[in-house]
């Protein structure tokens, strides 16, 4: 993965507009975070959900936010730092300084494994 360049990623995102897509959306504070009783361990995970979006915008000055306007709703994520386009799939993720993944947003025309 490489650091997000906002114009480049905006262009890639727009190629996915108005198409049937599979998405992966994940946030996590880590399974072991639950050990720390003072902090609320949170996470969410959807793999191969399907959606179509009509508009998309990546915003911020890094880490970035991305918002998808769906036919009948919204999806958004924040804290994204890096991206990679592979085999027509767009992988975006937010990593902390030590390289630990905290959020991932991925789009694909075919289901993820």
């Amino acid at each position, binding site marked *: 993965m490489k650091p997000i360049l906002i114009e480049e990623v905006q262009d890639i995102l727009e190629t996915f507009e108005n198409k049937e897509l599979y998405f992966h959306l994940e946030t996590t504070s880590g399974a072991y975070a639950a050990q720390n009783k003072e902090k609320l361990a949170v996470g969410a995970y959807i793999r191969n959900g399907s959606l179509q979006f009509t508009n998309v915008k990546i915003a911020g000055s890094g880490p970035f936010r991305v918002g998808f306007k769906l036919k009948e709703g919204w999806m958004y994520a924040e804290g994204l730092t890096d991206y990679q386009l592979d085999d027509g799939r767009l992988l975006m993720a937010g990593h902390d*300084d030590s390289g630990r993944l905290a959020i991932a947003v991925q789009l694909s025309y075919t289901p993820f494994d």
Partner: protein
Amino acid sequence: MEKQVLVIFPHPDDEAFGTAGLMTKFINEGVPVTYACATLGEMGRNMGNPFFATRETLPEVRKKELKDACQAMGVNDLRMLGFRDKTLEFEDPELLVSTFSKLVDELKPSLVITFYPGYGIHPDHDACGAAVVEAIRRLPASDRPTLYTLPITPDRESVLGKPDKVFDVTDVLDTKIKTIEAHRSQTEAMVARLDDGSLDPNSDIMTFIKQESFWIYPFDE
């Protein structure tokens, strides 16, 4: 002497700190050891700095690490069970139990090793341990293998008492460290400290690595 050992954990690297030494000892004695690993740790968070993986390539990275770890220990029967990381507690428990029952029926182990359910910290550890306990509970009492369980919560000794079995693995420490190193994606930061010698041989972590402790699971009957 054990006839056959079956180790069942949910994630590659679960064996590294708690049982790699004992597994190596068994192998050195000529006891067959099967390692059944339920998932590939697909949800691991550490992608490296610089990155060595993405969410999509991590399973292959960890599969390779798992095979390398088995090679380090000399385990030649590795079963990758194909479940997905962080989903075990949501699976139909019967699916897990029957998967483990089949392994037990096939291998007829004299000793099984897993996590102590309820003391696993990670939900996959608890779900795995509970299903292994259930698979063995269903056997007639006289056919049950011994079950070594690993509780890893900090309160383990205050609740469960002292471990039933404590093994000194100093004699196979090199192999154990190689096993830990094989799981590079998970252990990189620690391994760096082992390599540069900044870990005092008498430090807590080294004391912890040199000893492996197990609680024999108490079946009621």
